[in-house]
């Protein structure tokens, strides 16, 4: 079966900083992949290149065998890749519900009709479905700028999945969330996603990584220094000395 994502010799430098150095990865449909690495290791750069926010200097990115290298975010989104952000990218002046209405409207094309009502039954149905899957019901009428960080993180992911992506990239879904709530948040997210969605998520908390991924990519200095099952990666001596800092 064609891999959902295949990345070949991907490289990117910012001046003298090497953010990606010859990255090669192949991801199978339905995999849950954790991306780990210290600050500045190149995780976000990787996500940004796959989703078209920045163009790689060299290398190719294939989505189900189709070359999407250097395409615009809009093109890549339409091709089936959606993402959330390290800092949630939402419509701050709108309510949680209105954010979802816009997202659903774009996904269905209804947002481009001059007078489509937000109360149309199928739009409503989709909004209710997302609100309940992501447990956002109680925040529906709250303006996003007033919402707590963890709720914004969830909403950012809910907005990202309105287009029913094949590949979903989550950049630090639990950052800024109190540690005792991280598992609850990840439980909600993972339960809300259909099984056939391939998920790549950036994460600093190794307990989360072990629990929710079946494969880990360890980034260091723009390179992938380990790529295997979480238990293997987390016991790799290089990963221990460079990333997790665990002595044992």
């Amino acid at each position, binding site marked *: 079966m064609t891999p959902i994502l295949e990345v070949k010799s991907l490289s990117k430098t910012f001046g003298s900083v090497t953010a990606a150095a010859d990255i090669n990865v192949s991801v199978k449909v339905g995999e849950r992949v954790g991306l780990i690495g210290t600050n500045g290791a190149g995780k976000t750069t990787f996500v940004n290149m796959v989703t078209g926010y920045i163009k790689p200097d060299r290398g190719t990115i294939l989505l189900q065998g189709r070359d999407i290298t250097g395409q615009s975010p*809009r093109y890549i*989104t339409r091709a089936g890749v959606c993402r959330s952000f390290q800092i949630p990218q*939402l419509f701050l002046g709108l309510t949680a519900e209105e*954010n979802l209405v816009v997202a659903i*409207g774009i996904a269905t094309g209804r947002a*481009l009709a*001059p007078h489509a009502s937000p109360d149309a039954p199928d739009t409503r149905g989709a909004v209710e479905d997302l609100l309940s899957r992501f447990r956002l019901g109680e925040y529906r*009428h709250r303006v996003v700028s*007033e919402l707590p960080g963890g709720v914004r993180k969830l909403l950012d992911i809910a907005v990202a999945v309105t287009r029913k992506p094949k590949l979903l990239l989550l950049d630090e879904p639990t950052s800024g969330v109190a540690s005792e709530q991280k598992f609850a948040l990840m439980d909600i997210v993972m339960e809300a996603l259909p099984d056939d969605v391939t998920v790549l998520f950036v994460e600093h908390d190794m307990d989360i990584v072990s629990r929710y991924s079946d494969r880990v990519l360890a980034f260091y200095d723009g390179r992938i220094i380990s790529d295997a099952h979480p238990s293997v990666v987390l016991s790799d001596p290089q990963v221990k000395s460079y990333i997790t800092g665990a002595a044992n």
Partner: protein
Amino acid sequence: MLDWRSTAHLCMALVALLAAGLVLPGWANFLLVIALSKGLAALGLVVLLRSGLLSFGQGLFYCAGGYGAGLLMLWGGISDAALLVGGGGLFALLIGVATGPLVAGYRKIFFATLTLALSMLVHGALTKADFLGGTDGLNLRAPTFFGWRAGSAGENVYALYAFASILAVALAGLCRAHFGSVRGLLSLGVRDNEIRIEYLGTSVRRVVFENFVIAAFLAGIGGAINALALSHIDPELAFWTTSGEFVFVAILAGQASVVAVFAASVLLEVVRSWSSQYFPNAWQLTLGVFMLAVILFLPNGVGALLRRRSRPSVEADAK
């Protein structure tokens, strides 16, 4: 689409406007025609403001609508008000379509400056175009209304007023339905976060372009009505002070209500006529004082006064 309740509100508003015109003196009808025509141009600005953009060149499209209608009458021999106003609106829309792709790539002060530059370009060109009357402009005749010609100046003003009222109510109703639609929310989304819009798979440029064209069309309709009311067109329509008035009306109105846009426009025309009566040479001064008062005391516009329901405020939640 509009629900029956909004439709009923619109019909009632129209009947009230038509009835008011019958009892008001001719000068008041005239003042209201001008206010409605400017209100339409300002309504266009509100469409743009909702996507986070302020145009300082709305006068360009007001002018395009006026010249479009005027030249249809003078060169095309058309005298029917509906055809003239429709033609003026269409002409402004086409100019919006032609200039839209250029301006849609700009934001904030660059967008404002570029729209201003375009309107000043047109203003400059018109003052030099002798075949269009140059600085003096051109005089128009009284229009006909679906084959009927007014017997007196008073009748003509009322007919124009009724015609402008119907158009303003219909267009305001469409705008209100549009603001409440998914597409209306999409505009607010563009204002709040362009990155998210692109990452949802649609084009920010397209949204801005469409809003710019809608704004151009509304200003064109307004400009055409204004031309018929004054029986005159001149390059001043594209001058920056005209655009500035629309900006002022849009800010005075706020973005909460479509009705507020017309209320603000009427208010401005009333202040203008009052000022020209009592302080004939101090219109700019009066306008300045008026603007200052609005910004100090009504920072969210008169629309905030008209809005019945409002979102729970931050303060109420913070307790």
